[in-house]
């Protein structure tokens, strides 16, 4: 296990470094003269030079990269060109929307997928099992934003139970904030749940056909005991891997769903700054998201190690 952890940690660090270089090159390399882009066509050469100097954009790329990374490590995400606000300040308030949204979406997805996938794996012959498989097949084809639109049409416009968009701050109106997040979370969770259901189903099918489940049955466990005590415990391994892989997709879904419900989250901030060519803001926020995804993947990997004695006890 210690070596396993060390290897995963080393990979995490390597991955973050590689991603940071890729993001930096992509944005700085492909973007041309950043200062000129930011100030637009009508800017004078002096203004461009002044901005470039102020933000150190005239230095060699390598220096700029290390400068950016060094500050990133100290928690300094840079400043906006236009408003000179600190990116870190901008990010923090946005995260209070994006993180609850993303995490609750994941939890809801799992709460749907684990029972549904298990049921349809065990009872594929029953009508309800077939229905679950069908719904998951259809759910995979539904774009998350359209699910959001349909849900707000039903619960927001028709029934008027929940807001179709907008946001009140947590401290201003806690329950209002919760209500604003209900439909976005359901949209995310349903669509994520649909695709996870398929994976859970095939993991459970696979595990329940294993010899050791038959052994469990032959030593007196009922089908349900064998499922709960042996099956799900073993199916947790492939499911953990898949969840890790789905995180990147979940982030994509969160970006879109924030737009559907006009939530002022992290992704809307990125979108606005993409449009405004706020290179530093985009660069740092994107890096932050990538680190977040990689961190979750690291946690999933470590969890896998704990769950699987073959990994935990390997030297």
């Amino acid at each position, binding site marked *: 296990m210690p070596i396993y952890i060390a290897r995963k940690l080393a990979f995490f660090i390597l991955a973050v470094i590689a991603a940071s270089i890729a993001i930096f090159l992509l944005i700085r390399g492909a973007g041309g003269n950043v200062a000129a882009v930011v100030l637009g066509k009508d800017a004078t050469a002096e203004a461009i030079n002044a901005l470039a100097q102020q933000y150190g954009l005239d230095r060699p790329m390598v220096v700029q990269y290390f400068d950016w990374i060094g500050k990133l490590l100290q928690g300094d995400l840079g400043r906006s060109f236009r408003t000179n606000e600190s990116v870190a300040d901008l990010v923090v308030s946005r995260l209070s929307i994006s993180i609850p949204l993303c995490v609750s979406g994941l939890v809801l997805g799992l709460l749907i997928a684990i029972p549904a996938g298990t049921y349809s794996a065990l009872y594929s012959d029953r009508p309800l099992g077939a229905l679950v498989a069908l719904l998951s097949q259809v759910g995979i084809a539904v774009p998350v934003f359209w699910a959001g639109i349909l849900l707000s049409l039903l619960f927001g416009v028709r029934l008027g139970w929940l807001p179709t968009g907008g946001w009140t701050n947590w401290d201003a109106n806690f329950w209002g904030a919760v209500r604003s997040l209900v439909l976005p979370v359901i949209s995310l969770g349903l669509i994520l749940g649909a695709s996870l259901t398929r994976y859970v189903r095939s993991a459970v099918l696979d595990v329940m056909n294993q*010899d050791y489940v038959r*052994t469990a049955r*032959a*030593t*007196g466990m009922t089908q349900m005991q064998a499922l709960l005590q042996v099956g799900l415990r073993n199916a947790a391994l492939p499911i953990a891997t898949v969840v890790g892989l789905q995180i990147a997709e979940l982030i994509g879904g969160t970006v879109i769903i924030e737009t559907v419900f006009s939530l002022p989250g992290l992704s809307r901030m990125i979108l606005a700054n993409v449009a405004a060519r706020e290179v530093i803001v985009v660069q740092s926020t994107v890096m932050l998201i990538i680190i977040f995804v990689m961190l979750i993947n690291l946690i999933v990997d470590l969890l896998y190690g704990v769950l699987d004695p073959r990994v935990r006890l390997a030297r």
Partner: protein
Amino acid sequence: MTAPAAIEVRDLHVVYDGLAAVRGLSFTVPAGGRMGLVGESGSGKSMTALALMGLLPPGWKAQGTILHDGVDLITQTDKALSARRGRTVSMVFQDPMSSLNPVRRVGDQIADVIRRHGGVGRHEAMGQTIDLMMQMNLPRPEQLARSYPHQISGGQKQRIMIAMALACYPQLIIADEPTTALDVTVQKQVLRLLSAATRERNSALLMITHDLPVIAAMCDTVAVMYAGRIVEYGPVRQVFRNPRHHYTRGLLDSQPTMDNIALDGSSRLTSIPGMVPPLPALPSGCAFHPRCPVATDICRARMPEIDAATGAACWHPVAASQPAVAS
């Protein structure tokens, strides 16, 4: 024989959508007795074992009567069967490598069985587990009990499996090819252990294998299966010394022994021509007739029953005076 049989099977059929893997099987294993069930792959012997356990794969159904411990297992609910599995009847499977839960310590897996059926506490169950492991000749049982399956050898895993099967002193143990997945050197030890441990507990043993010498060494009676039916049934000595069914005879003749392998390579090992028929294409009459040297019209037309005098289900049994190659 006053004690009730460990298991009594009457006219067992195992079917799936109109197909039958087992077609009218009847046999009895007396309490503490040892019966061998032999046959080629596809003869239905494993399906028989799973039917006795009530663990047939989805879609398969058992019909007939399986008397065990005063009840007909076929009529029992799965819950009632669960309460019996591992307690009055248990099974040792073929492949110990994949038959243990990879994420649970082997000692806990044995203790789970004891706790499930014995109603004893965690501590007591662990004590019994260590005793049991010691009886299985497992080295350093306290330490081994804390291992996971991937950390121990195949022979050790199969001993663990046997310990789980024996833990509650069952009346019947079904062993389905328990050693085929093991190294040759380990096979004999495991078989000897299985034999001694069942004898000690007075558990009956139903040994399923295609390995005739194993049956000869371990069992009192033998049933030879072909295409879902018993074609010959009797005491091991009698059947192997003087087989009356042409299939049994063929099986015995195709066993390599030191007698029929001449070292100069001049001798020939005989084999039965043809293959076991697939289920959807069972021959009419006696299913063995396409491969049988003496088949006639009646063999093609009518299915023979076991004859009380010969113990063979054959229209033209091998003559009693004609001994097969020594087994």
